[in-house]
């Protein structure tokens, strides 16, 4: 026995088991089971097995990163970031990666459906188009079109179509759009979408702006954040402070995370501003009227209303004084209240006081194509659309790029109101909740099958127009692009104007060539220019003038309401948090995003109620207990998840789940917190106040095991089988601040 060393024994074992494996499994596929089709007439550059990359634009969110799609044997396989895109700079996020699952989704609609005898039956495109013409012919103001966010030529065509029908009812709805932010930015900075230089800041104070996760242009900001966190060229490593009621991904990356009472963000910001202008260095940064208004925000009020301690307040203030330039950002959790615009104004005022305007907050270049700029999307549009439906003013209704029956809060009764319209058309990829209510459902090409142009709302450098081009042949004969449908309808309405273009591609190409002179390095030859456009995927606008921001602090309403009294019946505030993958629910049918652990909780394939561990202990709630969360407008039941990253009087439920339709992966998974929101609106813009709903939480008798990646043993939070993953030190044991 001793003759056989351990090494030789393993060799022997290894060989014998390998032999068994080889003999045991017939691993070589049988011949003739698959076919292998050759090309008929391939392009010269096509080699089977070697990928070709085509430039396009990601449409998974509104950030508009440039992408390059790898195509092999005529199939798109994977997307990469395009280095020529000023937004993505060659990077992409997980949400973008999952776009191929929209394209190859087994639940995609493949033919038009028409409601006959109460159910949706297949119909032909000819029939569908003639129905559209017939129903819109004399509709006039009885016609309404609800769309999701739009920009580029698609937006121009669609608006022209609505106008050609004699209607003014085009509503642009986005449940996650921050219209409040844009309105206040416009007032203070003079631009709706200022540029933020995160990389140049030495300190960032964010009030719920999740710029690393879901806010505005996350991929771009993540790139800047890398620079921000590096110490170089005399710039110290940036310090990040985040004040928000529920920890976002950005909050989780912060040096100091402040669980602020929801709605009191403005008071905290003004408290900091008031303390700063007491000092000679800052006294002259704001006009006298503002200084006067700031007197009402002494430290006592701040501590009382925000729940921020004197120590945290003092340290934040010290850092704001010490680190320049800094950057203060206002996000959805500060803006989603009745006084959301005042909160945002208070927060942005800090940038003026600290002298950040012109340094870390600058104006974007001018857009020579204002008609192609992104439509001003928000939730007020949904309310206007819903009112028209409720009053019976809209009889012929089109919906594209939005799923209002799913995402509208329960109190709007949108489903019932939608049914009141006589003829409802939904342009969609799936049989979602809105399509289920429609009279005519028109299946669209996927984002990888259609042409388009896009202009992103947030432009980090001089303006770029992004091209979207098909990455492969259409998967199904029966789908069409929205651009082609709208152009067909416009040709009927205005044949002289639009008759010259056979399809949307021809329209787009001629429109781009016509405006060639506006772009940098455009080739003299038209075809050469078009080839250039498609191979680069982006067009840089040549004459985008740089503007200077002249901040205006005069016109601000800085009179914030005091904290509302406690409500015994509904003691908690509800945060409908943004799920990084599912967003407003439009991606809930992508298995990759469902099974990607949510970054902060690691929960997959479900909804959950985040509750603070201390609150949970007080109420006898353990992880996995089914909680019933009730507002004045309904209730939802979901598993409890004990999460320390919450203001203790707050519960959070992620958005995006709770679909009743939309295919096999979305349907029946989790709950939709939007359904129980209260009818509270931001008073200056009319946007839905998403963070202003009060709820009651009750423990039910049911309990489940939470399916998550992190420590699975009871109570094993942040550990792996009760072993610590990383050895940590409490924050108060670390000297982060210089002793005064």
């Amino acid at each position: 026995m001793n003759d056989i060393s351990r090494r030789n024994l393993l060799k022997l074992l290894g060989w014998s088991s390998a032999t068994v494996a080889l003999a045991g499994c017939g691993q070589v596929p049988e011949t003739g089971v698959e076919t292998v089709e050759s090309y008929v007439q391939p392009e010269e550059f096509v080699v089977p097995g070697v990928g070709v990359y085509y430039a396009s634009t990601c449409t998974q969110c509104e950030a508009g990163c440039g992408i390059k799609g790898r195509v092999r044997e005529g199939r798109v396989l994977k997307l990469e970031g395009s280095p020529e895109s000023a937004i993505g700079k060659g990077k992409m996020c997980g949400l973008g990666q999952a776009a191929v699952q929209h394209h190859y989704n087994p639940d995609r609609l493949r033919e038009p459906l028409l409601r006959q005898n109460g159910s949706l039956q297949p119909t032909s495109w000819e029939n569908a188009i003639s129905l559209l013409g017939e129903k819109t012919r004399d509709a006039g103001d009885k016609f309404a079109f609800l769309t999701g966010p739009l920009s580029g030529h698609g937006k121009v065509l669609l608006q022209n179509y609505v106008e050609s029908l004699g209607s003014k009812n085009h509503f642009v709805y986005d449940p996650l759009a921050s219209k409040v932010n844009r309105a206040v930015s416009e007032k203070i900075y003079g631009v709706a979408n200022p540029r933020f230089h995160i990389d140049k800041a030495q300190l960032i104070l964010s009030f719920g702006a999740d710029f690393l996760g879901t806010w505005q242009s996350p991929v771009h900001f993540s790139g800047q954040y890398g620079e921000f966190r590096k110490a170089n060229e005399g710039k110290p490593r940036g310090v990040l402070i985040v004040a928000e009621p529920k920890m976002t991904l950005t909050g989780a990356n912060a040096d100091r995370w402040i669980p602020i009472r929801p709605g009191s963000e403005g008071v905290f910001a003004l408290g900091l501003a008031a303390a700063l202008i007491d000092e000679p260095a800052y006294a002259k940064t704001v006009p006298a009227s503002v200084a006067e208004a700031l007197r009402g925000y002494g430290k006592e009020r701040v501590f009382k209303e925000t729940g921020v301690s004197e120590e945290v307040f003092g340290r934040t203030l010290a850092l704001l004084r010490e680190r320049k330039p800094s950057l203060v950002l206002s996000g959805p959790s500060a803006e989603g209240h009745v006084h959301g615009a005042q909160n945002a104004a208070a927060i942005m005022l800090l940038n003026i006081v600290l002298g950040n305007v012109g340094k870390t907050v600058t104006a974007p270049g001018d857009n020579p194509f204002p008609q192609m700029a992104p439509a001003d999307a928000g939730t007020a549009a949904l309310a206007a659309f819903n009112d028209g439906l409720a009053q019976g003013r809209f009889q012929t209704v089109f919906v594209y790029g939005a799923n209002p029956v799913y995402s509208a809060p329960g109190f709007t009764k949108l489903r019932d109101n939608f049914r009141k319209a006589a003829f409802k058309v939904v342009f969609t990829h799936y049989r979602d909740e809105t399509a289920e209510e429609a009279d005519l459902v028109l299946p669209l090409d996927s984002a990888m099958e259609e042409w388009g142009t896009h202009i992103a709302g947030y432009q980090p450098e001089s303006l770029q127009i992004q091209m979207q081009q098909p990455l492969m042949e259409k998967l199904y004969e029966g789908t069409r692009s929205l651009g082609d449908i709208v152009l067909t309808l416009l040709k009927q309405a205005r044949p002289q104007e639009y008759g010259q273009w056979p399809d949307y591609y021809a329209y787009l190409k001629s429109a781009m060539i016509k405006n060639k002179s506006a772009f940098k390095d455009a080739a003299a030859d038209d075809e050469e220019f078009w080839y250039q456009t498609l191979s680069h995927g982006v067009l840089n606008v040549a004459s985008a003038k740089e503007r200077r921001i002249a901040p205006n602090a005069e016109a601000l309403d800085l009179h914030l309401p005091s904290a509302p009294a406690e409500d015994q019946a509904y003691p908690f505030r509800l945060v409908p948090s943004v799920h990084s993958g599912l967003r407003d629910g439009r991606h809930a049918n992508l298995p990759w995003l469902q099974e990607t652990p949510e970054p902060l909780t690691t929960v997959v394939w479900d909804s959950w109620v985040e509750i603070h561990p201390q609150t949970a202990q007080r109420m006898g709630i353990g992880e996995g207990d089914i909680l019933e969360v009730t507002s004045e407008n309904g209730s939802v039941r979901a598993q409890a998840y004990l999460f320390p990253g919450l203001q203790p009087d707050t519960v959070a439920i992620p958005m995006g789940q709770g679909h009743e339709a939309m295919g096999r992966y979305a349907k029946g998974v989790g709950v939709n917190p939007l359904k129980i929101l209260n009818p509270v609106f931001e008073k200056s813009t009319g946007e839905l106040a998403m963070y202003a709903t009060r709820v009651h939480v009750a423990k039910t008798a049911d309990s489940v095991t939470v399916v998550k990646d992190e420590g699975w043993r009871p109570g094993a939070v942040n550990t792996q089988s009760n072993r610590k993953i990383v050895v940590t030190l409490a924050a108060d044991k670390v000297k982060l601040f210089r002793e005064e």
Partner: protein
Amino acid sequence: MEQPIEFPHDVHAGKMGINCMFCHTYARRSAVAGIPPLEKCIGCHQNIDSVRDKPRIKKLFEYWEAKRPIPWKKIHDLPDFVRFNHERHIQRFYFQQNQPVEEVCALCHGDMKSKTVAVRVKPLTMGWCVSCHEQDHRVNATSTATTNGPNDCSYCHK
């Protein structure tokens, strides 16, 4: 295995002595050999009137006129977890060692000069691959130095 067209390899490679890589042009450029595009067949056959009326050629032109690809049955296939690279093998044995091309291809595909359509004659199992990779062979046509095929798992199982 019945193919849509009984392609005569014996005529093309055998009787006519056409180099394998004239039609299988992707094999030396890519991991997958691919099937020659229809255009390739037509490129020659539109000028070969003598066989234009043969049933197989008629069928070929029917596909061409309809612009339809020919649905060939796959004969040499490997499981998805195996990454075989045609390019590497042809570079080594044909371009570096200067072996006759029909012998290089025959290592895995058998003697195609004697067959019409392809038939799997080699087992294409891992043990069979390894049996070759374990043998020493010359580095190139002129050198006396020898080497053998890689035996790391990750070369084929990526």
